[in-house]
């Protein structure tokens, strides 16, 4: 039901908005939503942090970029290879990494993100180094070009919708419950027969593959990629999207991605003080709605609906 509403909303937006600037902004929000959604599965639901998620975003982008720009592959053939590549790398990284937890996992993934960034920058024969990788072809379906504007908007938001459905089903399943169980108490989760280390590895791989998909979509949208789009600050931005939007909330990922994509754009009016205002807004959100915007909005709504909120007391019956 929610998905149908969502699809209708996307469709109306796509059909009514004609200004290409707005379409592009919305397309970026879509790509960021996929990134945030993946990380939210790992962070919000399973409670495992990753400070190097931009690495997988970059991996997806560079994989398709190199295959199509250098070797002349069709993007549609590059897509499964890029996703499979992200899958394999994420799995190999996760094997040792997910033995860590808390701050140590944060540090470990941070290190991995830096390594990936250096590889993107220094392996210039393949990646183009600092000056970037140019000549990534736009997507085409037959003779129809899906380069930018409306077609790309629909492509990206179609992917968002699929990712939404996948994540929502995942959350409301045996796997999703096990993930939340790990978040609440890893000790008790193991005592329920959950193979916690294995599940953590798989959710990490899952979120990395979503990031890889976002990377693919990004690369063929902008047709030019450079290492700075996949550096440490980008990893932090993805984490911020999840936290601002709301941990363990699928819609929160959309909200967080939207806020963090639109906000810098609106704040241009502050010119020199742009970053200061940006930082202040993020701080304010964290102080006043520490559980994220989604939770904050829902709470306000519930409060306004019934003033006297009483917690149910089981001993009363």
């Amino acid at each position: 039901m929610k998905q149908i509403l969502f699809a209708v909303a996307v469709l109306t937006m796509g059909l009514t908005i004609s200004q290409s600037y707005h379409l592009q902004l919305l397309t970026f929000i879509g790509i960021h939503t996929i990134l945030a959604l993946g990380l939210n599965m790992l962070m919000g639901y399973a409670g495992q942090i990753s400070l190097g998620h931009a690495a997988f975003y970059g991996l997806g982008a560079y994989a398709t970029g190199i295959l199509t720009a250098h070797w002349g592959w069709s993007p549609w053939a590059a897509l499964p290879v890029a996703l499979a590549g992200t899958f394999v790398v994420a799995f190999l990284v996760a094997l040792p990494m997910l033995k860590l937890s808390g701050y140590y996992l944060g540090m470990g993934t941070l290190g991995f993100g830096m390594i990936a960034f250096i590889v993107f920058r220094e392996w210039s024969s393949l990646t183009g180094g600092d000056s970037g990788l140019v000549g990534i072809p736009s997507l085409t379906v037959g003779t129809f070009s899906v380069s930018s504007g409306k077609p790309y908007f629909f492509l990206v938001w179609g992917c968002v919708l699929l990712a939404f459905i996948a994540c929502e089903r995942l959350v409301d399943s045996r796997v999703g419950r096990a993930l939340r169980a790990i978040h609440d108490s890893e000790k008790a989760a193991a005592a329920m027969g959950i193979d916690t280390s294995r599940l953590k590895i798989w959710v990490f791989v899952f979120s990395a593959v979503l990031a890889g998909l976002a990377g693919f979509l990004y690369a063929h949208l902008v047709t030019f990629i450079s290492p700075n789009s996949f550096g440490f600050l980008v990893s932090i931005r993805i984490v911020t999207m999840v936290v601002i939007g709301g941990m363990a909330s699928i819609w929160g990922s959309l909200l967080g991605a939207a806020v963090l994509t639109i906000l810098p754009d609106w704040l241009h009016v502050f010119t020199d003080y742009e970053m200061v205002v940006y930082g202040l807004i993020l701080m304010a959100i964290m102080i006043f709605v520490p559980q994220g915007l989604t939770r904050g909005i829902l709470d306000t709504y519930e409060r306004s609906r019934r003033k006297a909120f009483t917690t149910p007391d089981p001993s009363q019956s």
Partner: protein
Amino acid sequence: MSVLDEKPLPLQTLLRVDSVSMSFGGIQALNEVSFDVKAGTIHSVIGPNGAGKTTLFNVITGAYVPDRGRILYEEQEVQGRKVHELVRQGIARTFQNVELFGSMSVLENILVGRHVRTRCGFLGAMGRWSWVKKEEVEAKRRALELLEFVGLVDFAHHRSEDLPFGWQRFLEIGRALGADPRLLLLDEPASGLNAVETQRLGDLLERIRGQGITLLLVEHDMSLTMGISDLIVVLHQGRKLAEGTPKEIQSNDEVIAAYLGSDRESFP
């Protein structure tokens, strides 16, 4: 009401703890501890604080690997196996300080308890094939039965951390039953319960035993242990001090001395 598959087990050894020793940096937590748990009984391990009860528990459930000795479960050596593997084989447990999944509903807690009896993975969850839906319906049905069994069915959709403490204990036991265990280990189930709740707990444990499930309790509360245990093992400073029926334990001078100094009066 038959909630758990009724299969009367013959009175045989389900679990054997065989000269298990374990030390932590010079402290001998367990020293050559041995005893048998017969299927279909309620067996208790008691002892003063620091006697090694919780260590013993963690060894049996696979959280610790003992330095020496063996744990035999259904005639197989299981020491060193991982916690989650042992659950699959039928050893479930609860925790001393109640480890519920606080952010999840009461029903969801039980559903997590059914993890080892269901099998849907990432692809199954995303595809939501018909067998997945069927499995989910079946798991929910069973979870509601278990909630009925522990008396919490009316609160299925409450957040588990909103329940009063005593109810959380019952939920935790229900969650452990979700794994269809053959051996259920309860770590101080009566701690933090009032007299009425302890009474209800005793009844519940009897009903669980009635379903053919063997119980092993680590307990402090004498009124509960003495009332329902078939056999009691007394640990003291990592050693087995005594083993016997509640009557035998109650009249064992060594036990009384270890437990309460020499104050015989206050021992039940």
